[in-house]
């Protein structure tokens, strides 16, 4: 098949995953994943390592061939038009596959060439993107001279070279220090404001909670729940949690049953959810049980995962 030249579309594109499955032999790595990614939305795939997040992203841009199902980008099916679809998609893979033979600026200029952006247009676009991700002063540096955070910013800049409608970010902040993560989050938020659809995979619940408009919780290749972060938390675990240590499990079980809530072992301690309607009563009873440690805090996505799977995200 001989492909056409660079396609152009000004319409915002919607990405739809239809019943995606991936099997390796008898083992299903992804089982029946469905979702829609709209323009100007950050959709998160949240799950522990091995949940099938990277395999799902691979199926979205064509590096993993689905065993069943398909991906639709606008009117195109990604499996049939893999390379052509990538004119509209920016991809930040888990591994930094920057070109070590080129400088920071050259990495962008020569990547732009693959999109038929050449000469001055490529230089201008590369300059714009370096300014956007704050790498102008590193333009002439070699890739191996950059820190992990700077490399991730450059990979993001590279993914934006063709002004994509949709960006896939596969575990983009793994291994970064807190400052570098904050910088990266700011850049991702800007993409949403510009109308770009962003698919973010992460196992950091704070990242998912802070950035994502909607979340799909994945475990062993299956979507176990979905919704906005606030919806998921309130629906699954309530609003507040207590971490408690040094009390008998039988007492916790009794108090949880009386209050119509739930508890889980959590390392050496226990987590117990405070009921939304009357949290103070249970809190006072827990405090009266003279625990070694008692911490009251807001519920988060980690608690959701613990409730749904019995396992932590980390």
């Amino acid at each position: 098949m001989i492909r056409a030249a660079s396609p152009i579309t000004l319409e915002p594109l919607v990405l739809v995953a239809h019943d995606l499955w991936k099997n390796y032999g008898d083992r299903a790595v992804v089982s029946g994943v469905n979702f829609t990614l709209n323009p100007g939305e950050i959709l998160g795939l949240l799950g522990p390592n091995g949940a099938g997040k990277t395999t799902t992203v691979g199926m979205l841009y064509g590096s993993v061939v689905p065993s069943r199902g398909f991906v639709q980008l606008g009117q195109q099916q990604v499996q049939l038009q893999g390379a052509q679809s990538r004119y509209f998609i920016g991809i930040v893979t888990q591994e930094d596959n920057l070109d070590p033979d080129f400088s920071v600026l050259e990495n962008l200029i020569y990547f732009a060439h693959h999109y038929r952006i050449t000469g001055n247009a490529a230089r201008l676009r590369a300059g714009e993107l370096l300014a956007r991700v704050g790498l102008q002063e590193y333009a002439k540096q070699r890739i191996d001279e950059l820190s992990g955070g700077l490399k991730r910013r450059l990979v993001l800049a590279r993914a934006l070279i063709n002004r994509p409608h949709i960006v896939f970010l596969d575990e983009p902040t793994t291994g970064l220090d807190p400052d570098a993560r904050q910088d990266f989050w700011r850049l991702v938020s800007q993409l949403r404001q510009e109308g770009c659809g962003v698919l973010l995979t992460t196992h950091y619940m704070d990242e998912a909670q802070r950035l994502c408009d909607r979340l799909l919780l994945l475990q062993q290749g299956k979507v176990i729940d979905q919704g906005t972060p606030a919806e998921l938390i309130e629906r699954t675990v309530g609003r507040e949690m207590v971490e408690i240590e040094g009390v008998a499990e039988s007492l916790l079980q009794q108090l949880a049953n009386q209050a119509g809530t739930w508890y889980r072992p959590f390392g050496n301690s226990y987590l117990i959810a405070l009921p939304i309607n009357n949290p103070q009563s249970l809190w006072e009873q827990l405090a009266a049980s003279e625990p070694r440690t008692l911490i009251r805090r807001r519920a988060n996505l980690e608690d959701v995962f613990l409730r749904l799977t019995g396992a932590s995200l980390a």
Partner: protein
Amino acid sequence: MKGISATAWGVYSVWHRHAKVYQKTWLFNSLPPLSEPLIYLVSFGYGLTPLVGEVSYEGQTVSYLKFIAPGMIAIGVLSQSFFEGAYGSFIRLSFQKTWQAFLTAPLSFTEVFLGDWLWASTKGTLAGLITGIVAVLWGLYSAWYLILSIPLIVLGSLLFGAMGLLTAGTVRTIDQMNAPIFLIILPMFTLCGTYFPRDTLPPLLGKVATFLPLSSLADLLRWPLGLPQFWPLELLWLLVCTGVFAWLAGRKIYPQLFK
């Protein structure tokens, strides 16, 4: 592999990336194709010519240097295209992940594969031409003969480039690269009639050497001294080997990129 999707731009874009990297260190990169034939021609020319004098080839007597000059062109083609295809592509595939980065751009596997293969072939062609120019300047090969031999040099480069890519797709560690180098490349280098006529080899070894593709390339590049009896078959053999190695290389590399 499902389907073949390619544009000329996509293939060129991959080739262009490799050419830009080469351009950055062109001085060091141009050293091997220039120094290799010079060293061989000087050492064999001054070292062996007094001992060997002349050799008999296709029913005529030729000076030893004139005999080995086309062999040196074939060696230049082999070493540059094979090693670029093998080491260069392996490093880009397994260490630098350049292939994987290409595939996040709107490039298909076919475009990336053809771009890498063409680059390996470009290096082989350049090496063959540089060696040929040295031979022309030395008075061992006519300039016209060299110009007319360009299609053969390109074909040889495509063949050994494909063989290199097959190696890159087959080995799992860089140390495993020694197996094809010492089991295939080195025997070709020494036995395929580049340094001496193959008819001096024991009959069985001579027959085996005849089927190694460097023999056909060296024989065909010696056309100014006389075409071998079965030259159309040798040409066909080069074409078949090129196609088979390229197909096998694609089959080996594809599953490493698409799961």
